[in-house]
């Protein structure tokens, strides 16, 4: 397995506050990696900075190429794609237009294949293809955000809190899709508060606290770690119990 994304000694600052401190991580091809941690730990900031939304000090390499001089749009063109926490859909445009724009940089034939792929993964979207994105339910919006990202045939997908605000049953469906994507050759970097679900689907995990990684390893090992269980798995499994 070769390395796809390599982040070395990354620092991200919000004004005077350093939200991410000296973070290093790797994601290999065909791998699902998750970053778990409490609200405000800096997970979203880290993902956004890897995408180029915020400036980042340190090195981010994708497929061995340093991304420093590339803006968001150039990073997208290289196969790195972010599904952000707030989804950032085109609310006043319909589902089909949203998906079509996901393939903005792709050929027509490629977009046609993309539509087929996304509609197979998310049949619900096909039903709603003429509906405005802003009128979809939370779960459908998450599906659309993921679908839109997949239209651009990314090599790696970064998902920021895909379960946020969704009913448990919909979350389960989203995580099934994440597992399926890996089988199709897309790597996933998953940021989640719902630690239990994330650790079930991931290969490896990093635990983030106050801007730093405090723990990393195989997801199965992290899941059984005493500290993690106490801090992050306490309430998350109550729904299923």
């Amino acid at each position, binding site marked *: 397995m070769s390395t796809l994304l390599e982040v070395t000694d990354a620092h991200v600052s919000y004004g005077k506050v350093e939200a991410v401190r000296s973070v290093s991580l790797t994601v290999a091809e065909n791998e699902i990696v998750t970053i778990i941690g409490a609200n405000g730990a800096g997970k979203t900031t880290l993902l956004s900075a890897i995408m180029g939304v915020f400036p980042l000090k340190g090195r981010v390499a994708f497929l061995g190429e340093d991304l420093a001089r590339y803006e*968001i749009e150039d990073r*997208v063109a290289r196969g790195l*794609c972010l599904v952000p926490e707030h989804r*950032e859909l*085109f609310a006043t445009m319909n589902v089909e237009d949203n998906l079509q724009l996901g393939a903005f940089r792709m050929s027509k034939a490629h977009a046609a294949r993309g539509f087929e792929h996304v509609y197979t993964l998310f049949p619900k979207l096909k039903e709603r293809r003429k509906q405005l994105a802003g009128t979809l339910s939370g779960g459908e919006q998450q599906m659309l955000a993921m679908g839109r990202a997949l239209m651009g045939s990314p090599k790696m997908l970064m998902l920021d809190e895909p379960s946020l605000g969704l009913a448990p049953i919909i979350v389960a469906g989203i995580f099934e899709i994440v597992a399926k994507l890996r089988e199709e050759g897309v790597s996933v970097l998953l940021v989640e508060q719902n630690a239990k679900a994330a650790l079930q689907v991931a290969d490896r995990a990093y635990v983030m606290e106050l801007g730093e990684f405090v723990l990393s390893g195989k997801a199965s090992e992290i899941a059984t770690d005493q500290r993690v269980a106490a801090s992050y798995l306490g309430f998350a499994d109550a729904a299923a119990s």
Partner: protein
Amino acid sequence: MNTTILLFLLQDGITNGAIYALLGLALVLVFAVTRVILIPQGEFVTYGALTYASLAAGRMPGTAKLAVVIGLVAFAFDLYAMRKTLHAPKIARAFALHVAFPVVVLLASMWAADQRMPAGVSLVLSLLIVASIGLSLYRIVFQPLAHTSVLVLLIASVGVHLALQGLGLLFFGAEGQRGPTLLTASATLGSLRFTGQGMAVYGITVAFIIGLWLFFGLTLYGKALRATAVNRLGARLVGIRTTLSGQIAFLLASTIGALSGILIVPITTLYYDTGFLIGLKGFIAAIIGGLISYPLTAVAAIVVGIVEAFSSFYASNFKEVIVFTLLIPVLLLRSLAAPAVEEEKD
């Protein structure tokens, strides 16, 4: 009132209304893509008209030099933004856009002013000059403010209007000018006389409206511009360059503005500050269209033109008062019709 006057007023109103419609469309376009309420649209009108008139009269317009100066500033902005990641193709593109383009146009205008070229050449050069100004202005003023609120953009827009109007006085003086007509043919139908110029106004307006409608509704690029308008970050995340969208919008708007100016300058005398008032009337139409709808904007523009024509006949003193107060009930209706959602402002 007899029918002749009625028809004449209607015709006059529709001709003016068509111009307002063009301007209204450009305003809608710019607002949709960049959220900028383009107050300096009126200056694009003036610049277009007076540049055209100057060139046709064999004078070198100051606007051509202005295009070079703001182009250089824009290029400097680009260089500064790229200072850490100097990337040859990007620098070359910025140079071509902000430096080479206006310089070539300047040289061409200098040459054309000497030669007394036909109206068509003056027209094209004027459009290019104003387009170049619009393009570089976006880079200097609005691109750095792209993340701010509509209000900040509006105030910046007013600042640009002030500066451009002052420069207009500097370039063209306080005296009004007229330009040569584009089409000299004319036809008479009953008591109405249709001039070639009038027909050009109608034709170009209709073509633009249809073109824009098709562009935004059907093409991928049009949709990308709309997407940028709806959600900037979302657009960037699918690989749409928002700065490029903004540039295209400003390019289109400044071209449309200049074109409107060139269309009317053979009909009415234009002063350095006339554009502002004309632009504001396009504005009224754009607002009636909610800054969203192209067809509604076009219809509203015609209504504004007709109201103006009739009020200048019956209460010429209060023409402007009537036209501007027309906006208030419209704004009120717009506000009431808007859904009661919370606006998140900062």
